[in-house]
């Protein structure tokens, strides 16, 4: 052998042995690296495995190809094809008294010498060894030798006029008469026995692939092709064969042998080896010359593609088992996805396991599944009792629960939606209160009188404060005292509106904060109430509130201490009180208590201690800012806060952004963070249909939410959502897409009605909706021809379904409203898209409850089974 080409053969029966053949044959045993005490000839293959050289055989020069005897006994018998066409049997690491003694050294000599290209043992009749040779004029190129045949010198010497060369040592070991000779006047480049019948041999000939049948050697089936090298049968699919030519692999199906069923993408360099994985179906590995990667092709058996959902037929990927160029490789015969690779340059071997392709699927609910090798993994969320408190529930679970509790559908008391969502998400609470206050302001009759303000209500405080004008300043006294405060309070119409949106003020005329304080007290938010009272310069009220908080059930007695500290307030700059408060306040746990002292101890106009206390709700900080920041500071602060909120995707920021493009940006980062398209959809539907809803992101959230509902089989919820959406965004109402057209005139029967307004008929008059007692129309309004008949009741369509139609079962006694709704649906036209038979929807539904075939006699259409979703039940209740 020239040394340029090497090959690896795995032992067919010892999963830990393989032979590397280049200029000589080397038998290796593979074992764990740890226990292999560094014996001579042990080379590491990978982190875990090492190979031990067991034997070397250099008896056979000019090796061109090698094949390992497939049977267990005699083991380690190899056939070597030589450059002059001779096939020699040899063995490795066997004692000489072993079973193969009489076979070793046997030579099979073709009539005319030429290179032996390939060898293949018959896997069943293992005495048969096929050899593929180069072309020699009219001689045969496929010779099948019987290794058990005895040479009979007397019989053939005279006939064949043998002149054996001097190198033939023992003439008794030389066989010159093959059992079969095939492929006259042709060259054979590759061979393999077919698995479906051991008498069939597939050969890659000069320009064709040929299947020879040993039962009738004068016949062969063949196909002209260039791809004739390396023919190999898929061990998992006996009709599938791969062969290659230069850089292209062709996959053949022997049942349809005219042309390749597949050709793989051509590689720029010629291929050197193509091998099916023996342990995984449809996995083909290919190697090109001078390459450091092995390309793998996963061939999926996809009988009929369904829609766009099918996986591609072939998935190509490549692996890099070692650093250098790869000389050759061989799959392990039994260990999954394992192979040994020999590098091209230094003959270094690598033991390598191809990592399994992972395919992953998300369920529309919370579970996740992936497949790897022969394992299927499912990852499901723990039940509510399992990991409650430890981990947040998955957003899909949350959205599902919220959809079932009609989250988002309370359009009057908008803030209640956060309770429907579970009531434990502060951001959602803030969001829905924001939307509630916006709605309140927008509907406020008094505001309406003050000009076109309701549009600006939804545009957020950021925009409101920008338009602020006519700001007045005032310095108030602390209520209940004559002392002037240092803090300057600013007033304007817009600031008032902002306070209302923040929820601090009630109606426009009502500037009193008292109702808000009372509601906070009711909700036992003592600290917050105290802070709001303080910011409204009512220190006495604040102390009062804290007192009340301490007295209340389970109240915090520390609030009394805070109240005492508060009561010692002095505006004297150098006082001990001031000094202690400004330093000790930072140790207070409650942010509201903290900001109270920050407010009291800060210089006028410099309220950073309050404004940048991130634990304080945005609405309170904004309300505070709109009271105490001047016209220059306020927009700057609001802008800064807005950007912060947008970046964080914090829904509290909706107060600032409103339902504008800014708001969509904010919502986008919220959805990116949480995946909560449900909240995003409901929230954005409240915005003005003109701009916000046109945003493709918003449309995307809405569509995704609808798809999600469909995937959960929450069809009623989805319908409800569509109705809700249609009310808020009339442009989203879909146009009628399905029409019933007359068989005779082809006009839509409902369209015809619309075209004749004087008749004033709607679709309802065909009994499709409305009361069944209304006028019955059983003919086409266009041509007056009768409508088709229902296949079950044989009445013309348009005739309402009688009340006892279909089943008269007594268990149908469901609530009446539901029955009424169904009764309308029962009159609908319905038909099978396949056989075109149909009738009243109600009749059809009850028919297919018990039958699979079409109700029309002699029609064998299995209409209902064609409808993939027809047998699914909705998971939600209407």
């Amino acid at each position, binding site marked *: 052998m020239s040394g340029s080409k090497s090959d690896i053969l795995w032992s067919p029966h010892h999963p830990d042995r393989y032979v590397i053949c280049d200029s000589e044959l080397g038998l290796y045993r593979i074992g764990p690296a740890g226990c292999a005490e560094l014996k001579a000839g042990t080379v590491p293959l990978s982190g875990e495995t090492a190979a031990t050289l067991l034997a070397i055989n250099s008896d056979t020069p000019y090796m061109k190809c090698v094949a390992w005897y497939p049977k267990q006994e005699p083991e380690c018998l190899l056939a070597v094809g030589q*450059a*002059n066409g001779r096939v020699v049997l040899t063995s490795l690491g066997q004692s000489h008294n072993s079973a193969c003694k009489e076979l070793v050294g046997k030579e099979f000599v073709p*009539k005319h010498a030429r290179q032996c290209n390939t060898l293949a043992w018959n896997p069943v009749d293992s005495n048969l060894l096929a050899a593929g040779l180069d*072309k020699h*004029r*009219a001689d045969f190129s496929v010779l099948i030798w019987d290794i058990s045949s005895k040479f009979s010198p007397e019989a053939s010497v005279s006939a064949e006029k043998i002149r*054996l060369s001097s190198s033939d040592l023992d003439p008794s070991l030389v066989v010159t008469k093959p059992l079969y000779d095939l492929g006259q*006047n042709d060259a054979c480049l590759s061979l393999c026995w077919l698995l479906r019948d051991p008498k069939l041999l597939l050969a890659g000939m000069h320009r064709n692939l040929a299947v020879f049948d040993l039962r009738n050697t004068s016949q*062969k089936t063949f196909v002209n*092709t260039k791809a004739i090298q390396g023919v190999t049968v898929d061990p998992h699919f006996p009709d599938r064969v791969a062969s290659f030519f230069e850089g292209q692999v062709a996959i053949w199906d022997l049942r349809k042998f005219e042309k390749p069923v597949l050709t793989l993408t051509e590689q720029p360099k010629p291929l050197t080896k193509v091998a099916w994985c023996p342990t995984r179906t449809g996995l083909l590995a290919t190697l090109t010359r001078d390459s450091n990667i092995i390309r793998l092709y996963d061939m999926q058996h996809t009988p009929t593609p369904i829609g766009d959902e099918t996986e591609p037929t072939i998935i190509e990927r490549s692996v890099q088992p070692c650093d250098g160029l790869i000389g050759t490789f061989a799959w392990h015969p039994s260990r999954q996805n394992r192979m040994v690779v020999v590098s091209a340059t230094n003959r270094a071997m690598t033991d390598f396991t191809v990592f399994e392709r992972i395919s992953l699927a998300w369920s529309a609910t919370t579970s996740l599944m992936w497949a790897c090798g022969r394992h299927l993994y499912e990852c499901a969320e723990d039940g509510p009792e399992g990991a409650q408190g430890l981990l947040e529930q998955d957003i899909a679970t949350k959205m599902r629960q919220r959809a079932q509790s009609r989250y988002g559908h309370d359009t009057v008391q908008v803030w209640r939606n956060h309770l429907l969502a579970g009531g434990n998400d502060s951001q959602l609470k803030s969001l829905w209160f924001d939307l509630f206050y916006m709605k309140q302001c927008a509907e406020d009759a008094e505001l309406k009188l003050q000009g076109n303000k309701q549009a600006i209500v939804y545009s957020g405080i950021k925009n409101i404060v920008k338009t602020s004008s006519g700001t007045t300043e005032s310095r108030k006294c602390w209520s209940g005292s004559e002392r002037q405060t240092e803090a300057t309070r600013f007033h304007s119409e817009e600031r008032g509106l902002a306070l209302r949106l923040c929820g601090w003020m009630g109606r426009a005329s009502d500037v009193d904060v008292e109702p808000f304080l009372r509601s906070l007290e009711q909700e036992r938010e003592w600290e917050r109430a105290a802070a709001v009272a303080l910011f409204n310069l009512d220190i006495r009220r604040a102390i009062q509130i804290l007192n009340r908080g301490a007295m209340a059930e389970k109240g915090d007695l520390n609030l009394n201490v805070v109240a005492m500290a508060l009561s010692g307030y002095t505006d004297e700059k150098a006082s001990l009180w001031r000094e202690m408060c400004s330093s000790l306040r930072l140790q207070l746990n409650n942010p509201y208590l903290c900001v109270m002292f920050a407010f009291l101890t800060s210089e006028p106009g410099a309220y950073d201690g309050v404004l940048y206390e991130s634990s304080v709700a945005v609405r309170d900080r904004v309300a505070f800012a709109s009271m105490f920041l001047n016209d220059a500071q306020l927009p700057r602060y609001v802008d800064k806060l807005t950007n912060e909120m947008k970046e964080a995707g914090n829904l509290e920021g909706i107060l600032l952004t409103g339902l504008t493009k800014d708001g969509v940006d904010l919502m986008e980062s919220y959805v990116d963070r949480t995946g909560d398209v449900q909240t995003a959809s409901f929230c954005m539907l409240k915005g003005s249909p003109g701009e916000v809803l046109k945003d493709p992101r918003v449309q995307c959230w809405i569509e995704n939410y609808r798809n999600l509902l469909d995937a959960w089989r929450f069809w009623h919820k989805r319908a409800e959502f569509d109705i809700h959406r249609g009310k808020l965004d009339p442009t989203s109402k879909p146009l009628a897409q399905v029409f019933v057209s007359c068989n005779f005139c082809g006009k839509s029967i409902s369209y015809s009605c619309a075209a004749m307004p004087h008749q004033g008929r709607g679709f309802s008059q065909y009994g499709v909706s409305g009361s069944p007692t209304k006028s019955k129309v059983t003919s086409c309004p266009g041509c007056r021809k009768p409508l088709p008949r229902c296949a079950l009741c044989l009445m013309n369509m348009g005739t309402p379904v009688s009340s006892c139609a279909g089943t008269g079962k007594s268990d149908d006694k469901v609530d009446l409203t539901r029955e009424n709704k169904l009764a309308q649906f029962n009159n609908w036209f319905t038909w099978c898209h396949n056989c075109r038979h149909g009738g009243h929807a109600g009749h059809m539904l009850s028919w297919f409850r018990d039958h699979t075939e079409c109700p029309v006699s002699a029609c064998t259409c299995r209409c209902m089974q064609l409808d993939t979703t027809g047998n699914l039940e909705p998971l939600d209740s209407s």
Partner: protein
Amino acid sequence: MGYLRPKNRRNSGFRPLRLNHKLAVALPGAECGLHFCPPAELPESEHISVAEATWLALNVVSGGGNASNSQPIGVTKIAKSVIAPLADHNISVFMLSTYQTDFILVRERDLPMVMHTLSSEFTLLRVVNGETVAAHHLGVTNGFVKPKLAPRPIIHPLSSPSNMFCVTSLDPDTLPSVATLLMDVMFYSGGSKESGAGGEDTSHIRFFSFSLIEGYISLVMDEQTTQRFPNNVLFTSASGELWKMVRIGGQPLGFDECGIVAQISEPLATADIPAYYISTFKFDHALVPEENIQSVIGALRSESNLA
């Protein structure tokens, strides 16, 4: 060594890079292909004499569809199906038998005629990038001369040298190890000095042919030359057959005369004697099995006596 130049020139026609221009003609029933390949352009040189016209090679390929016991080798097999019809249509051919197969070279300008001639008996197929597709007729079929179906006597003088020849091959991988030997045999062993020394045996001929076609090497040399090669390098048949040569032509045959191959091959085919046939720049050579040489000479003599 006079035959070396034309041989090299013609080998250029088999360059694989012209594979896509190949045509194939297939026999009905048995797979038989005649491959055409136009030669690459040669540089003009005063040191090289080039025969007029470009030649296309037809390669006869057949699969072993019918396993017959008699295996005619070489020109014998195609004598009646290909060579004789071409001779009948006055098409000059140039034969080149190798270890692996036979090539028939025809002039490019004769191609329409060749196709016309062979299409009556063969299904014409064109080989494009290795894939075989049906070939269309080239040119018109009108105006072709009616074939003259006259008997073909042997015109040229024949001679049969005494030495015996081997048709053999070797593994291209071993080529480097015998390269110097090959150069010695081809260029340095048969000079004019030695011709005088060998003159005592006038019937001895020096003949050495080396061809490398599509990666396959073919060698024709006499038995003495084979002794110079190391053991196990040359491919020898199990039967170790040897061949005797029949040289055709007393003076250079030229390129226009047609029917020479047919004159020789038809009697051999009739007698079912396998033969190789190698045309060179000056003469034609037929190789026949040594044991058949007497019957061959007899048969050919009777043909020339007819003339």
